[in-house]
């Protein structure tokens, strides 16, 4: 069996492709990618134009930059990212077909995968919170032991983990 290249792995990960990438999946992924590129092209053009007008009329370059950077980030992550997930689901690119006997194992794998994703998010969020809190006073190492650092982690990580478990489990389809 041929080993998967890193670029193929990134491609599969980005479009949530399951199983081997055949021509149908590749064609649909390319079509989704084209739509996202067009969306980003128009959004970036308009956002840069608006930010330039704000900067030139108010002379507040920092605010203009913050508006531009945050709007591009939000659009890319939430709008473009959601579209990739929606389109992938619509074209069944992420569907994972399993035999009825392997159904429980597949669900177990999906739950383990969501726990892993939750753990990664938890660790990143924990250190990020400590860093953000350290900007307003105490040192980074002190903030690591501060209970407030853990509060967002305790709130968001379980919600994220459950959400991911639902998403992964919904992708599992029983072979008829």
């Amino acid at each position, binding site marked *: 069996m041929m080993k998967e290249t890193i670029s193929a792995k990134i491609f599969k990960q980005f479009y949530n492709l399951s199983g081997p990438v055949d021509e149908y999946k590749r064609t649909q992924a390319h079509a989704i990618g084209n739509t996202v590129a067009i969306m980003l092209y128009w959004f970036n053009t308009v956002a840069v134009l608006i930010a330039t007008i704000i900067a030139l009329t108010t002379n507040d370059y920092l605010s203009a930059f913050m508006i531009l950077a945050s709007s591009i980030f939000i659009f890319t992550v939430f709008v473009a990212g959601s579209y990739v997930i929606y389109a992938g689901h619509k074209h069944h690119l992420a569907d994972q*077909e399993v035999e009825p006997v392997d159904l429980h194992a597949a669900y177990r794998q999906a739950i383990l995968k969501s726990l892993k994703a939750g753990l990664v998010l938890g660790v990143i969020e924990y250190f990020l919170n400590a860093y953000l809190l350290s900007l307003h006073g105490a040192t980074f190492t002190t903030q690591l032991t501060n209970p407030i650092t853990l509060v967002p982690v305790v709130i968001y990580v379980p919600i994220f983990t459950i959400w991911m478990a639902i998403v992964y489990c919904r992708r599992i389809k029983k072979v008829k």
Partner: protein
Amino acid sequence: MNNVRKYRKQKNFSQLELAKKIGVARQTINLIENDKYNPTLELCLRLAWALDTDLNSLFWEEKE
């Protein structure tokens, strides 16, 4: 409607078996059989070879 399903059944292949033979996902075979996806010429040839037939038998439609 193409004749992929007819020839597959003649050869006693399941969609999964045929998919594995030509290196695609089962869903792709299902989409081709239901005319929801137009395969490339390369995939058409692989289908024809796997089903021991030719492109005309699989995909040709008489002009109405």
